[in-house]
């Protein structure tokens, strides 16, 4: 192909020519292949779910006027994964309840850039404030591609009494004052310059859904 193709498109071409096929080891059997079979089966799994998060930030002034609103994806952390396993199995009885805000989302070596969230993040870089979220549950019974989808929605509105630049957030099990509190996810974003009496509404949706190509037909 032409060398003039932008890098992203060139990668797309390569991908289409050589799609990743060696995904599942040969010794595994997909669920759909097992149905109808008799006798022993090999180790493997294809039935799986996806977890993702969507953060909606709305900045309002003291009169409730919306100054800014944006919707962002997040990164689910390793500590979050571990804690999900622990609460589902009863090893821990503490769910994720808190939303934390922070001011350490910028790269200190290059302050014009954000520090991208990483799965290994275990806390915010610079904690600023926290609140116990109002949680609710929503289910989508017939998502077009994925069938069933379950969503946990976290909401909290922060108010401010001083000028502060907020640029990172996460969902956590407990208060930041509790050492080693696991966080579920993290997101950095460009500064929300909060003036005294401003509000920052955080709505965070954690979605559990099937992968679209794993449904048994």
């Amino acid at each position, binding site marked *: 192909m032409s060398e003039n193709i932008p890098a992203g498109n060139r990668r797309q071409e390569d991908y289409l020519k050589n799609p990743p096929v060696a995904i599942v080891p040969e010794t595994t059997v997909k669920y759909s292949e097992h149905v109808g079979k008799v006798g*022993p089966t090999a180790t493997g799994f294809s039935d799986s779910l996806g977890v993702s998060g969507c953060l909606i930030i709305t900045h309002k002034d003291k009169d409730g006027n919306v100054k800014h609103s944006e919707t962002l994806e997040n990164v689910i952390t390793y500590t979050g994964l571990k804690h999900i396993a622990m609460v589902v199995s009863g090893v821990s009885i503490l769910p994720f309840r808190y939303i934390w805000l922070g001011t350490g989302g910028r790269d200190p070596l290059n302050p014009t850039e954000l520090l991208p969230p990483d799965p290994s993040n275990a806390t915010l870089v610079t904690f600023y404030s926290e609140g116990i979220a109002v949680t609710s549950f929503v289910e989508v019974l017939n998502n077009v591609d994925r069938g069933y989808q379950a969503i946990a929605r976290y909401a909290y509105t922060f108010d401010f009494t001083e000028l502060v630049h907020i640029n990172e957030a996460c969902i956590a099990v407990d208060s930041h004052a509790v050492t080693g509190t696991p966080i579920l996810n993290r997101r950095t974003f460009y500064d929300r310059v909060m003036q005294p009496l401003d509000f920052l509404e955080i709505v965070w949706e*954690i979605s559990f859904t099937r992968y679209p190509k794993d449904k048994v037909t």
Partner: protein
Amino acid sequence: MPVIGIRGELTTSLFLPDGNFLYSETIENRIVNNGIKLTTKVVAGLDPRIIDHIQIGVGGQNYQQLVDAETGALLFDTLGNPIMGNVSRPIGDGDENLFTFYAETSEITSSSATGTFTISANFNIPFDVPVNEAGMFSGSQAGSPMMFAKQAFSDTIKMWENRRNATLSTVTGTYIVLNISWRIFFGRDPQHESLYDQDLGIVASEATDRYIPG
């Protein structure tokens, strides 16, 4: 987009009462809709239940005419008679119970390592009972628990007979022990990262950050 996967597999192992190993097979499970719902609610603190029961059942297979795995065509022998056999029943996303309940236990060992949780339980199965399905539940059957995951597998009579004919001549006792060890993995998943990227029409990034705990 970072993609997190939850998936599970179970290992069914058969032992004689004296502990002699007979047979084992491992198969992925099906996490049903109620399992997704329960996980979501538990994570958000909206439901206090946990996965603490394993049920077993005898309705996981149908005795029916077999089909060609490649073509789907019904199979006949050389005389034209249908070739019959036990066939695992498909698990539906909306399933809320086992096909045919037989027994349950809360006497499970539960552990949670880095992003993996495992529960394991033993059942004493009479020789003539064909246990061939299992499910993970959030409580006792009497309390209408939520089913997290389910799977059908080779029935215990078949497992037992195959093994007995192969290596064992005399066995005393009236039951065999079925151990079910169920593992649920929470991790980053390059396999599905690529699937997502295909769906989004963008190029798959290097899937090097795989996180398979435990």
